[in-house]
């Protein structure tokens, strides 16, 4: 399994040939094309978009606009105005919980999330429930960490206002049955909010066709820069929602006593936009399109399959979540009684970067009955040699710890 994109396209990886980067679920490395696009924006077209009355600003506005169109197309959003640029998934989900949530959720209503959510798709809903007096309900998972559709169906009812779920779990790699969840939610008149942070980088996403009401993702997890992300939403919902942040660009008229709001997408983009970030994200999308999302997925499936089999074969290794055929390129595991932090330190000394901890999913850790796991995650620049290094490092850690009996 060669890498889908050459390490030489990624300056950081090219500069450190020994580095084995297996933490792409946290953030990805950046291809040269993305860094060039950001730089080119600042060197050729930098101005404040929307505001200028001169050619330079028109170019900046155009590039920002083109970036939106490109990212919308990539995510299958045909109504481009409904693709809002945010700082990232966390802000996107907070926007929905604050703006849609405060306007629509009342005491006695129910908010449903799953037991596998990232804190970004858990805490905002939990806090909205506390604030409004709604009931916050957690749909427990199946034994192998999947969303339990039967349980979900049984939980939903006329009081349910929101079903919030991750398209792909950042810990288990589980891929949610999006259509089925949307049908269940819509069946009781609830909206379906999809945390797509781990989906947009790894799977073909078709927002329009999926039926979800809101979809959130982060640029930095899909080859793009930090500080930029998206929220896609249905026009009818977005139009009816009050703004989230207020200030410049998002207003129509500001009277002394009240204000009126600009049209979409501007209503939800207060202040100077991160145009350079949007341009960088559009370039990242361009790179992914050139590889092709089917090829990205096939590449990750091959890697995660090989890693799963080789790790599972090591005595004492426990892998959490579904089998390798059903998961995205994420593997959470533990090695005997080697604590994940110790494992990560030992792997790091072998130049292998994995993450250890609760992965911003403490509710899931409790459900797995662990305080932490080790996590390796794969992306377009990984190859078999990276898996060799991971496996060798895990063996070395096991050996080190086996010098003293338990």
């Amino acid at each position, binding site marked *: 399994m060669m890498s889908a994109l050459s390490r030489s396209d990624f300056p950081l990886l090219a500069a450190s040939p020994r580095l084995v980067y297996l933490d792409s679920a946290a953030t990805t490395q950046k291809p040269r094309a993305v860094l060039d696009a950001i730089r080119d924006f600042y060197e050729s077209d930098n101005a404040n978009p929307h505001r200028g009355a001169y050619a330079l600003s028109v170019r900046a506005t155009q590039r920002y606009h083109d970036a939106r169109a490109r990212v919308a197309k990539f995510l299958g959003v045909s109504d481009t105005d409904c693709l809002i640029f945010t700082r990232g998934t966390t802000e996107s989900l907070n926007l929905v919980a604050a703006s849609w949530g405060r306007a629509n959720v009342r005491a006695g209503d129910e908010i449903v999330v799953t037991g596998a959510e990232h804190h970004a798709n858990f805490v905002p809903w939990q806090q909205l429930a506390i604030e409004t007096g709604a009931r916050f309900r957690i749909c427990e998972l199946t034994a192998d960490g999947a969303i339990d559709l039967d349980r979900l169906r049984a939980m939903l009812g006329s009081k349910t206002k929101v079903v919030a779920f991750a398209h792909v779990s950042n810990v288990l790699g589980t891929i949610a049955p999006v259509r089925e969840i949307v049908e269940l939610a819509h069946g009781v008149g609830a909206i379906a909010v999809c945390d797509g942070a781990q989906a947009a980088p790894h799977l073909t996403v078709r927002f329009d066709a999926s039926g979800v009401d809101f979809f959130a993702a982060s640029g930095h997890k899909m080859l793009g820069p930090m500080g930029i992300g998206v929220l896609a939403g249905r026009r009818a919902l977005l139009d009816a929602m009050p703004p989230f942040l207020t200030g410049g660009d998002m207003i129509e008229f500001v009277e002394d006593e009240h204000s009126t709001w600009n049209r979409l997408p501007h209503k939800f983009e207060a202040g100077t936009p991160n145009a350079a970030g949007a341009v960088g994200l559009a370039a990242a999308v361009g790179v992914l399109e050139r590889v092709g999302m089917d090829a990205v997925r096939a590449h990750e499936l091959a890697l995660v399959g090989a890693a799963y089999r080789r790790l599972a074969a090591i005595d004492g290794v426990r892998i959490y979540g579904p089998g390798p055929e059903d998961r995205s390129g994420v593997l959470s595991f533990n090695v005997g009684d080697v604590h994940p932090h110790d494992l990560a330190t030992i792997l*790091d000394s*072998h130049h292998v970067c994995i993450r250890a901890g609760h992965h911003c999913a403490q509710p899931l850790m409790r459900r797995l009955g662990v*305080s932490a796991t080790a996590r390796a995650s794969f992306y377009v620049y990984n190859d078999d040699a990276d898996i060799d290094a991971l496996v060798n490092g895990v063996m070395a850690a096991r050996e080190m710890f086996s010098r003293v009996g338990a």
Partner: protein
Amino acid sequence: MSAPDDRNRAPNAPDAQQANVAALYQELILDHYRRPRNRGKLESPDVALRKKNPLCGDVIDLQVQFDGDTVRDVRFTGEGCAISQAAASMLTQRLKGKSSADAAQILDRFTRMVHGEEGAADESLGDLRALSGVSRLPVRHPCALLASDALAEALASRR
């Protein structure tokens, strides 16, 4: 499986950091991790406190009993990595029977050793010097210092 690209892979000889890490996870530390000393609870502690490291989720529950100015007994429970558990085990061992002043000085030296201060690790630290390699792993400092911070707080609360 083959490495089909042009990557110049790590040679088999371990580099400096690899050697440092291997030296850190030595038998002494793993023994304290597997068989922590002073693990448990006291019947009637003078001070009991909980300290947490939100970054990695480690928690320590600490209990201390004094005899006048002397640390008579100390116990801990909680979960964590080899470094935090070994540090708790070795520190509690080292502090038992010491005066508050001596105990505070040991904790101070230990903290400075973890932060990599030259010459901080003297004889008063005893076995704890086995943890000196942590100084080169900044991300692990909180693990090494969790018990030490809790103990320092317990001592301070008596003053």
